[in-house]
């Protein structure tokens, strides 16, 4: 491609999600000329089309409101080989041979090599993975020093920066995203704030479900909680309101949360932050231009080792190739698409596979928070399906001496009853009691009801539904990795990501501890579990011996895609430095949760937002001064 045909700018950013939007906006405000390449559709003028798609979806999965379409015209999962900018969906995590066979490349965009499925998904659309919950936890200080604190776990490393380095950037990210929380309540496990620090908005109030859990925790005894191996007394295990990028009062021209109970997949009133808000600010500076339906296909490295341009394919109209030249390049795809692009790109040295990969670490140490969920009926009504999907959790269990032996976990308390855990309530339970079925496992007599009896029964079941989730820390494992498929391509002819993924014993033991905590919590609350069996063919099923009994467990994805371009303090075992700058190419930055060396238990968004703002500051201060 002729160099003179390239678009020119100061900074080229690949990806208009959380990290890309925040950096574009900071640079735009500083009057730097920015071009953002977005693989998916543009920022829509309003969310009406997203809402319509959500309302009409029979499977209201996280991906349902967004494009590209999950289903084709015939009602099958869209064939990823025909989609220009494909994406994973939770509907292709089903058993082999079924509708959404996780191993079938005609159904799954990710080529899943196993042995277990990688269960998280992401979107490819301007705004990125807007189907997030809004949780904005900070990491606890120990999360940055895992090797130092827990030397017996060989996979752990320290971050090249610590909590104190990120503290001011956390504050700036909380301003930008608009976080509602209470400072005093968030001081636990060593989390500190600058003097007189305040969150932008007061905390989101607790739900009745939260209060029921908090009540149950009050009577925990030291004996009952021995299995947790905490240093602190059980009285310190408490329910805390989650900091959330969800308005508790009008903020930056957006209204307060109205409790639509729909943060995932979409807030119908945009009370929850999503990156389209920052993208609109960025384009309003007049210095930021977003090219949608524009897929980066290669990073070109010049003779001097610096990136000289990024090539792209546009598919909005007739397919066209193009390129962008900049002083600085920022890859903000995500922890699967960023390594994919790096690996697709050619390094001038034939001994180096891909760009930024002299360490051979690109694509490695893919992490998630394997998500263990449990559900049952409470003794007294807790009135779910009201308020934001999640308002509180138990964070105090996410660090302690046990981390020498097993993964930590964070507990989230669902306000959405059995909605997603049984495959789509209220539909499943309603169908059971109308049509005399028992797929919910609570219509044992297979009663088919009409009228008053139907109302009374459904009211009783729904108002007692309770769901709890455990986000488990996952070790970074080098063989959990993203590579390129040699066989399968997307609609543009680009190789699709191939994923190898497993859970280490350390991670599985974290899930075992979560299972024990669930038993304790349910006993304290008087929650009765339906007799749910995990099918033998469930790809996420595994068995563990717990108290001399074989127990079948399973996990889901938390949507927290981390690792694959990790930061470190040495060039030979990491991909970027603490500013997310490539060790190999000075003018290349890789941003987002792909740079996390370890994954902790907090959702990654606030930390990746803080890191992004720190990177934008570095680019402005040093590279473009």
């Amino acid at each position, binding site marked *: 491609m002729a160099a003179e045909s390239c678009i020119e700018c100061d900074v080229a950013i690949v990806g208009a999600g959380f990290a890309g939007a925040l950096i574009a906006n900071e640079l735009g405000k500083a009057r730097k000329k920015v071009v953002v390449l977005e693989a998916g559709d543009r920022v829509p003028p309003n969310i009406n089309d997203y*809402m*319509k798609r*959500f*309302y*009409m*979806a*029979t*499977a*209201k999965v996280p991906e349902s409101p967004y494009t590209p379409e999950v*289903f084709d015209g*015939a*009602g099958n999962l869209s064939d990823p080989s025909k989609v220009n900018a494909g994406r994973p969906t939770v509907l292709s995590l089903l058993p082999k041979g079924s*509708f959404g066979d996780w191993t079938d490349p005609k159904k799954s965009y990710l080529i899943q090599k196993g042995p277990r499925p990688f269960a998280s998904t992401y979107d490819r659309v301007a705004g990125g993975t807007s189907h997030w919950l809004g949780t904005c936890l900070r990491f606890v200080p120990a999360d940055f020093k895992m090797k130092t604190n827990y030397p017996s776990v060989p996979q752990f490393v320290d971050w090249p920066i610590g909590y104190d380095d990120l503290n001011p950037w956390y504050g700036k990210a909380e301003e930008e995203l608009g976080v509602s929380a209470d400072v005093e309540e968030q001081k636990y496990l060593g989390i500190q704030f600058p003097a007189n620090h305040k969150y932008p908005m007061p905390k989101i*109030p*607790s*739900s*009745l479900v939260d209060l029921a859990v908090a009540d149950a925790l009050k009577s925990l005894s030291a004996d009952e909680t021995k299995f947790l191996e905490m240093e602190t007394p059980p009285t310190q295990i408490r329910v805390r309101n989650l900091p959330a990028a969800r308005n*508790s*009062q009008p903020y930056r021209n957006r209204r*307060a*949360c*109205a*409790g*639509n*109970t*729909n943060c995932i997949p*979409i807030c*119908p009133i945009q009370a929850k932050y999503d990156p389209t808000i920052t993208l609109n600010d960025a384009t309003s500076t007049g210095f930021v231009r977003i090219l949608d339906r524009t897929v980066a296909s290669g990073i070109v490295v010049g003779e001097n080792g610096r990136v000289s341009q990024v090539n792209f394919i546009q598919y909005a109209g007739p397919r066209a190739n193009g390129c962008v030249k900049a002083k600085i390049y920022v890859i903000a795809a995500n922890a699967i698409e960023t390594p994919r692009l790096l690996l697709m790109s050619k390094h001038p040295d034939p001994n180096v596979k891909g760009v930024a990969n002299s360490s051979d670490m690109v694509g490695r140490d893919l992490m998630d928070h394997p998500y263990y969920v449990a559900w049952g009926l409470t003794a007294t009504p807790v*009135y*779910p*399906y*009201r*308020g*934001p999907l999640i*308002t509180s959790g138990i964070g105090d269990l996410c660090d302690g001496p046990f981390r020498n032996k097993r993964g930590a976990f964070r507990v989230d308390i669902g*306000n*959405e*009853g059995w*909605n997603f855990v049984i495959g789509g309530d*209220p*539909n*499943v339970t*309603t*169908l059971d009691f*109308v*049509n*005399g*079925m028992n797929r919910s496992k609570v219509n044992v007599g297979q009663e*088919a009801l*009409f*009228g*008053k*009896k*139907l*109302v*009374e029964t*459904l*009211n009783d079941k*729904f*108002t007692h539904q309770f769901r709890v989730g455990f986000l488990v820390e996952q070790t970074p494992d080098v063989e959990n990795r993203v590579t390129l498929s040699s066989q399968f391509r997307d609609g543009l002819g680009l190789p699709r990501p191939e994923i190898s993924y497993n859970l280490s014993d350390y991670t599985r033991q974290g899930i075992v501890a979560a299972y024990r905590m669930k038993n304790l919590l349910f006993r304290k609350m008087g929650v009765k579990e339906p007799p749910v069996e995990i099918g033998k063919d469930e790809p996420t099923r595994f068995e563990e011996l717990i108290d001399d009994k074989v127990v079948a467990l399973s996990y889901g994805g938390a949507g927290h895609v981390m690792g694959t371009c990790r930061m470190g303090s040495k060039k030979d075992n990491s991909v970027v430095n603490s500013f997310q700058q490539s060790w190999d190419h000075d003018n290349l930055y890789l941003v987002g949760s792909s740079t996390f060396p370890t994954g902790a238990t907090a959702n990654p968004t606030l930390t990746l937002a803080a890191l992004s703002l720190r990177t934008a500051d570095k680019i402005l201060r040093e590279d473009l001064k």
Partner: protein
Amino acid sequence: MTDLPHSKPSSVAPGEKEDESAGGFTRRRVLAGAAAATAAISVGAVDSPASAQTRHQDMVAFVLLSAALTGIAEGKLAPNFHPLPSPTNIDLEQSDPGSDPVDVKQEYFDWVNKRHQATFRRLLQFAKDSRNASDRAQAIIDKVQATPDTKYLARSIVLMWYLGAWYDPDHLRALVERPNPPPAKFEVISPKAYTQGWALRVAQAHPMGFSEMQFGYWSRPPSARTDFIGN
């Protein structure tokens, strides 16, 4: 996501008499299948001058039928529904089926009428016949359960009101009668229908993604169930 079967000949009960006076709708057309059934609507009762009265009475009957089957009050399903001269002495012509800007009942009526007209007419007749029974709801429920055709269509109608979604009666029957039942299939009727679903209002909440409440309501106990559904 599903391609639902439309009216099948088997959904018309043997010996069921069609309303031949209503503008050319005949049994032959039903037997001709889905396309003809669709066509029949456009030339059916709703278009002839004499049918305005029928249509009015059918809608009153549909509200009575729906309230009996769902357990949700008539005035909630159909805002401004007025049984006249009195709730225990209902005259189909005098009664007001109600009017509201959302008017999901008309969408539902048309939806069912288009797909299962013959069985639907039987259900409406049950409501008309039982309108002044001492326990109207129970009388209607007893009648619809007498034959599989009416029972499964009644269940489809309940699910429609509860979930804003269509589960075809033949499919509902297959789900309980087949030895290896298929996964449950349905289609959302419309965005409006989804937002008007009653299942989570029965739970003293709201359809997910459609709250008409204000910030912080979730930290307080909900109003009584009767405030939501009138029963």
